[in-house]
């Protein structure tokens, strides 16, 4: 009997890029539901707009680069980028702001750098930073969570949709009535005005530990994150690194001057820290590769988040921290090469002694 010749190994891997991406999307569902619960349907609209434009951008770039658009779209990486971008945006964002962000993320930050696997920067964060710097006013309409004790106007789904598409609020409603500063904003402006943390924390938007609404989104994000860890889609090094990198300086500053430094818990559960730790920083393409390198990468991101929040002018430093550490990744990889079995242990970066 005759047979065909093939090369070893003869078993196929059980994982694929699309299965990994789908698991990441699945892990984001709890966080998405919490987001909608606290901040209204704006998130879904942002997600839809981002997804449509990300997919369009990806298909366009793939066909321009003479690849099959279908193969690129079915790995769902554009969808993950869109989802992370949607999480970063306020609920009331005009569609063209979201679209710009999504297009920049996929076309420039991903494909112009070489496509999947070749991009140096985290595409979602690059897209977010571009629209943050270009349209700062439009990225400030943060909806407040549903709390009965605030003089606040909630918009219905239809009104949110109208705003997303046209940028206009219903008659008689002012921007100030539908938006509030985020807990991080409140903390930052409060500290700049030399108020103490205790005074700032008295505001109802601050919630119990991380800011009303945001802390619970943080918890649900963490649920998804731990599930990804259990399924071994991500490893512990980056989340732990981000957490420790943020907690370490936060704790020190809190111990030195508790009146003018927010508590470590606030930092950890406020803003996008947990989303960053489990979902944003763990993007494999733009992160470091070796386990030691990943820990350092995570620590760097956490530390930079703290620095930007504390001493920078932005309320939340996640996007910039991630992009800055992306730049450092090649150096981190070079310096953290594991020791090859059988090679001379003394040589710094795995040089052969043969």
């Amino acid at each position, binding site marked *: 009997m*005759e047979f065909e010749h093939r090369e070893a190994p003869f078993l196929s891997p059980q994982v694929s890029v699309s299965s990994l991406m789908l698991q990441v999307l699945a892990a984001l569902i709890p966080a998405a539901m919490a987001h909608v619960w606290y901040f209204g349907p704006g998130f879904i609209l942002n997600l839809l707009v981002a997804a449509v434009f990300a997919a369009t951008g990806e298909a366009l770039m793939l066909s321009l680069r003479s690849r099959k658009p279908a193969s690129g779209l079915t790995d769902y990486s554009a969808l993950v980028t869109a989802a992370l971008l949607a999480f970063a945006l306020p609920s009331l964002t005009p569609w063209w702001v979201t679209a710009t962000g999504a297009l920049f993320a996929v076309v420039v930050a991903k494909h112009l750098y070489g496509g999947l696997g070749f991009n140096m920067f985290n595409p979602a964060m690059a897209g977010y930073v571009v629209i943050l710097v270009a349209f700062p006013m439009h990225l400030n309409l943060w909806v407040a969570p549903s709390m009965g004790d605030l003089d606040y106007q909630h918009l219905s789904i239809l009104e949110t949709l109208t705003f997303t598409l046209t940028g206009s609020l219903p008659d008689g409603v002012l921007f100030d009535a539908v938006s509030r500063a985020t807990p991080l904003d409140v903390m930052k402006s409060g500290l700049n005005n030399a108020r103490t943390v205790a005074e700032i924390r008295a505001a109802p938007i601050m919630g119990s530990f991380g800011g009303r609404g945001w802390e619970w989104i943080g918890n649900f994000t963490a649920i998804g994150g731990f599930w990804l860890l259990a399924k071994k889609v991500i490893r512990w090094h980056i989340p732990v690194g981000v957490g420790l990198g943020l907690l370490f300086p936060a704790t020190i500053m809190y111990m030195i001057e508790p009146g003018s430094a927010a508590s470590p818990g606030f930092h950890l559960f406020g803003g996008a820290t947990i989303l960053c730790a489990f979902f944003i920083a763990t993007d494999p393409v733009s992160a470091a590769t070796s386990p030691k390198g990943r820990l350092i990468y995570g620590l760097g991101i956490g530390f930079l988040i703290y620095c930007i929040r504390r001493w920078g002018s932005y309320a939340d430093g996640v996007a910039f921290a991630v992009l800055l550490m992306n730049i450092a990744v090649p150096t981190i990889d070079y310096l953290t090469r594991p020791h090859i079995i059988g*090679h001379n242990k003394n040589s710094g970066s795995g040089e052969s002694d043969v």
Partner: protein
Amino acid sequence: MSAPTYDLGTLHGGLRLPANKSVSTRQPIINAPLPSQLVLPITQHVGDPAQPIIGIGERVLKGQLIAEMTGSLGAPVHASSSGKVIAIEPRPVSRRNGDNAPCIIIECDGKDEAIQAADAMPNFTEISPSSLLRAILQGGIVGLGGAVFPTAQKLMQARTCDIDQLLLNGVECESYISCDDMLMRERAGQVISGAQILMHALEIDKCLIAIESDKPEAIRALGGVLGEMDDSRITLKQVPTIYPSGGEDQLVQLVTNREVPSGGLPSDVGCLVQNVGTAAAIHDWIIDNQPLIARITTITGDGVANPINVRARIGTTIEDVITLAGGYTDRARQLIIGGPMTGKSVTTDRVPLVKSTNCILVSSETPSAEPEMPCIRCGDCASVCPVQLLPQQLFWYACADNEIKLREFGLIDCIECGCCDLVCPSHIPLTVNFRVAKGRIRELADEKARAVRARQRFEARNDRLEREKSERECELRNQKDLAKKAGPSAIAEILKRKQQKNEDDS
């Protein structure tokens, strides 16, 4: 993921593969009947091909030497049964994936008549180690774990180093293969005896038999024999069931916590590794005077109806033994010699079973339908690499043909175990790429060596020409000086001498 340890070293990475071994270990080993024809390749080992010493039409007996060793690295070939040599011609062999290689074809006469026992050595302890090694050389014994390195030469090399322990490899970590397991269950005594012979040949007194923890029957069998023999030099060691802990360097690291240096051998760190099958074969030859003419082979996979282990004569074609496993099923797609991770895929079942055939895997696996995607830098490949390489970086540099970086990142240390392939979400054929890249590195190294030699010869030639030129000038100057000193009569003499020389030459 790291392997848990049993009071010794650790192994980085590795995978827990589905064992698929119990299907073939349900029945005891079947002794395959004599085939009508034996196809014996003259190269069943690492090294130079053996040289046939019999002619076509000659009758040979079982165990007779039919091809002798040539060169410094090689092994002889013996007839697996009695019969007539009907041809010495190219036939398909597994070593060449089904392509042809020279073979000695014997038509068996069914009598299985053995050659007269010459020098059986049941009291091997009275023989000097060097004589023992010479005897092992003559038995055609090669490494039966699949690498088929000539055992005698391996032992000779080991004796030049400071060896303190013998490791018998009963790990058999790859899926589907169970021949060593069955050997240890049914012929534990021969394995232990082989270990004792090896220890005497190496003049050491420590032997560790490493077995995977998923082989309780083998552990019991060996433990039982050890208990009876009461040889305290030999101990059993259980290792965790992780692929590829059975690789030579990996086993040394796991059992002794010593790293085999890159490009080096286990003997550089004081160990010698031998497969349990090799030990049993040494016993058969030294004690029972039976050269290596048969071995145990697992026949398994979805493509055969009844997976089993057979003990067949070397030279039996796969076609002949498949019937013992119930024949092919309709799911037979791939014929693999070896395991699913490191085996060789052959194109025809007319290839003979040789010294290296530890497993015949008829698999129903078809190539993955998923296309190859770009590397997403997930790092899973590095986390499973037993040598702690960075397959991701090796892949980038292999695509870029960057020889310097490939060496720096340790491509030559890759054992081609295939773990990285199995965890890659982008379905990149990493192991194949590395195999090709290794060939490329060898090619570039050869070219470099040739260039260096050419330059040396060029510079040597220039030096020679310079030297000759300066010698001629020197001589000319001397002559001129002489002529000046001596005057015109000397010049006339020189002229006369030169004329005579010309006449003599022509």
